[in-house]
């Protein structure tokens, strides 16, 4: 390996689990701890409290204060106001990171229209439905709602305890988008319509996370763990939702209510804060992007099952692969694409988010993302039947 400049060495180091990568990992994880678990300790008394306050309490206060100061619009007197907090700040930072990474994507893949369109789509949806619209909704006194996030990724959207807060229209939207739209589009276009075109988790991975995509765990062991983990979380998500419905239907005061409360807390802590936030994003520089999407996201699990039954395929040009391995290396989901390509097998993998990078990096144009099952590109028309050109 040759890296002649300091910049080149640093870039290599941070992208390949060097010291700087570990530092960044520490920073990101610390940020998430403060974000999710930070509390205001006021005036800490004991040593432990002081330590805790120093560790994250003060940071959180600062984050909240900063958010409140800079990201609050309007005034309470006019009746229209929006109170900023650390979550607004987080959303802003998140969106900015995506925009910066997105600009780099536009530059880097300017020759590849699929990448351009896809990147534009995630950026647009992030800026609008995942950032501006929720703030505007709150500003005008409506519930803060993210139209681009669906159950079971946003598990509370189908939690009856929140139905009253969201109101009929939003609840109907949640039911429709999660239970009708998601599987339908998944059948037509594969998982990618959501994971690579809409979702903000995937959006961050495919913009700001791009430099680390090659760090995903490859190999059959990781694949086995992935199948076990992602379907496990899906099971938990479905069971929790069922429990919440049960507790809403059963008379108040039954034991189920207590369980429902418990699962709400634990699901929020472990799955949402822990896995999707701290682990999912904090681990970028060490474990690669899309750790959350690959191993834990229940939405991805559903879409993966749908994808297996749908029209999406990665088509492999016969006998053209030179087994170079670039496709496998740059697959953020750890799919050994080369194994299929060198065996001349078209394939669909449940985890494939259809980012299209394998096709982009392939130096022999072997791979093609497609929505058709039929391999023969010659369409059958009445004309072609008449003149025999379909043969």
């Amino acid at each position, binding site marked *: 390996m040759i890296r002649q400049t300091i910049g080149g060495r640093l870039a290599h180091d941070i992208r390949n689990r060097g010291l700087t990568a570990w530092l960044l990992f520490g920073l990101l994880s610390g940020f998430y701890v403060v974000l999710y678990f930070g509390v205001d300790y006021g005036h800490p008394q004991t040593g432990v409290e002081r330590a805790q306050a120093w560790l994250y309490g003060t940071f959180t206060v600062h984050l909240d204060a900063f958010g409140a100061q800079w990201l609050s619009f309007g005034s309470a007197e006019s009746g229209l106001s929006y109170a900023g907090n650390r979550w607004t700040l987080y959303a802003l930072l998140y969106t900015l990171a995506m925009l910066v990474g997105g600009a780099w994507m536009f530059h880097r893949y300017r020759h590849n229209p699929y990448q351009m369109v896809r990147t534009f789509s995630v950026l647009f949806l992030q800026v609008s439905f995942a950032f501006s619209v929720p703030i505007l909704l709150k500003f005008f006194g409506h519930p803060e709602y993210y139209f681009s996030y669906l159950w079971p990724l946003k598990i509370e959207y189908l939690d009856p305890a929140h139905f009253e807060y969201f109101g009929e229209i939003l609840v109907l939207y949640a039911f429709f988008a999660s239970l009708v739209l998601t599987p339908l589009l998944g059948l037509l276009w594969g998982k990618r319509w959501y994971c690579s075109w809409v979702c903000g988790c995937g959006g961050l991975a495919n913009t700001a996370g791009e430099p680390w995509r090659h760090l995903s765990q490859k190999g059959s062991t990781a694949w086995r763990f992935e199948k076990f983990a992602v379907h496990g979380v899906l099971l938990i998500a479905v069971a929790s939702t069922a429990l919440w419905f049960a507790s809403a239907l059963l008379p108040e005061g039954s034991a189920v209510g207590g369980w429902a409360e418990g699962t709400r807390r634990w699901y929020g802590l472990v799955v949402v804060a822990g896995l999707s936030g701290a682990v999912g994003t904090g681990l970028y520089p060490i474990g690669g992007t899309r750790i959350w999407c690959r191993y834990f996201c229940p939405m991805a699990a559903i879409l993966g099952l749908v994808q297996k039954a749908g029209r999406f395929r990665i088509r492999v040009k016969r006998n*053209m692969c030179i087994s170079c391995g*670039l496709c496998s*290396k740059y697959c953020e989901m750890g799919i050994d694409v080369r194994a299929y390509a060198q065996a001349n097998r078209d394939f669909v993998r449940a985890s494939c988010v259809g980012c299209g990078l394998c096709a982009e990096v392939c130096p022999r144009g072997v791979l093609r*993302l497609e929505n058709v099952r039929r391999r023969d590109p010659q369409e059958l028309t009445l004309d072609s039947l008449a003149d025999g*050109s379909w043969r």
Partner: protein
Amino acid sequence: MHLLIIGNGVAGVTAAMTARKRDVSLEITLVSDESDYFFSRTALMYAFLDRLSRRDLEPYERKVWDRQGIRRVRGRVVDLDAEGRTVTLDGGATLAWDRLILATGAGPRMLPLEGLDEIREGVVHFVTLADLDRCEALTPSTQRAVVVGGGLIGIELAECLHHHGVAVTLVLRDDRYWPTALPAEESAMVVARMREHGIEVIAGDTAFAVAADEAGRVREVRTHGGRVLPCEMLGVCIGVEPRIEALRTVRTAPALGRGVLVDDHLRTSLPDVYACGDCAEVESAEGERFIETIWYSARAQGEVAGENAAGGTRAYRRPIFYNSAMLIDIPYTTVGRSADLPPETPTLLRRAPGRPLSQRLLEGPGGELIGFIGLGSDWDHELLERWIREQRPVAWVRDHLHRARYDVEFRNVRLDRMDEVRVPLHGGEVST
């Protein structure tokens, strides 16, 4: 029964895997003097570019070899005894075999250069893992490099060096780039792209002498054309030759030509000894003799040799030729016959004005498609192959070309907006 395979390149490995599929009880051993595990030689440049690690070059998970029951031995074969059915390794160990496959590949050709004896460092090839190590070690101390060779490996090496900030001059013996594959117009597009990219290209010249500094490091290269090119590194990429030198001195050598001579079942002149891949010189049933030094042929031949060594009776049929490459950033696809045809062969050349994007349809005596050369976009070579086999008229292919497109979604290559000329394959005026 023991199948011994010399060479763990794609030919040898494919032979091993195919033999295993046919016969689960076969004992199989792969010998290599280059690497413990099969790696992708075609991907050397991506390792040099730092886009892949050494381990990434291995096409199979390492568990596969044990699971497939394929033993790997590291060592150079120095002797072959066909009567006693053994080979001897450089360490002195002997290995017995019942069936033997020679898959020793090809090694770099060397340019006769004056002053080469004085050089201790700085002259490189780009074919083996050791070459890659050497190139990587030299690059930090190299400001300028000269690469001699107008084929695929030359452009790959030039691109890698350029990527690492080395000023590269590519010297082409012929008046254009890759004349055995590309007609003049296409060549010019590739050269233009190389120049835009920052690689200097000199055509119609060759290096004849090289000079060293006090330390024995390359200092400059002189050409027949009178150029003196100062440089710290000289890459020689003028093609490969079958690696058979070891076989010339063994106790019982198979019949050798430029490569190991084999019939269409890939049998050598020795009983139960086969050869495949870059080292094999095939004599087909029609009496045609050829050496194919490309990955795809090595694979296809490996399948035949493996199958036959395990008791099969398959013949190797040379498929309709196809190949593809990435020339800097211009994708290239060719199917069927191409630059080897007579110069007056009629062709339909379609070009996008001002962009490196073209298709050329080569026409046979009856107006049928016999070859295709595409630059700048991706093509489905299987469909084009079929059209060639079916002898579709060029006019028909022209109108249906969009069906063979293999572009990424949303890319709309405007095939209907290309400039078309009918020209002979090489040179000459435009005909009707």
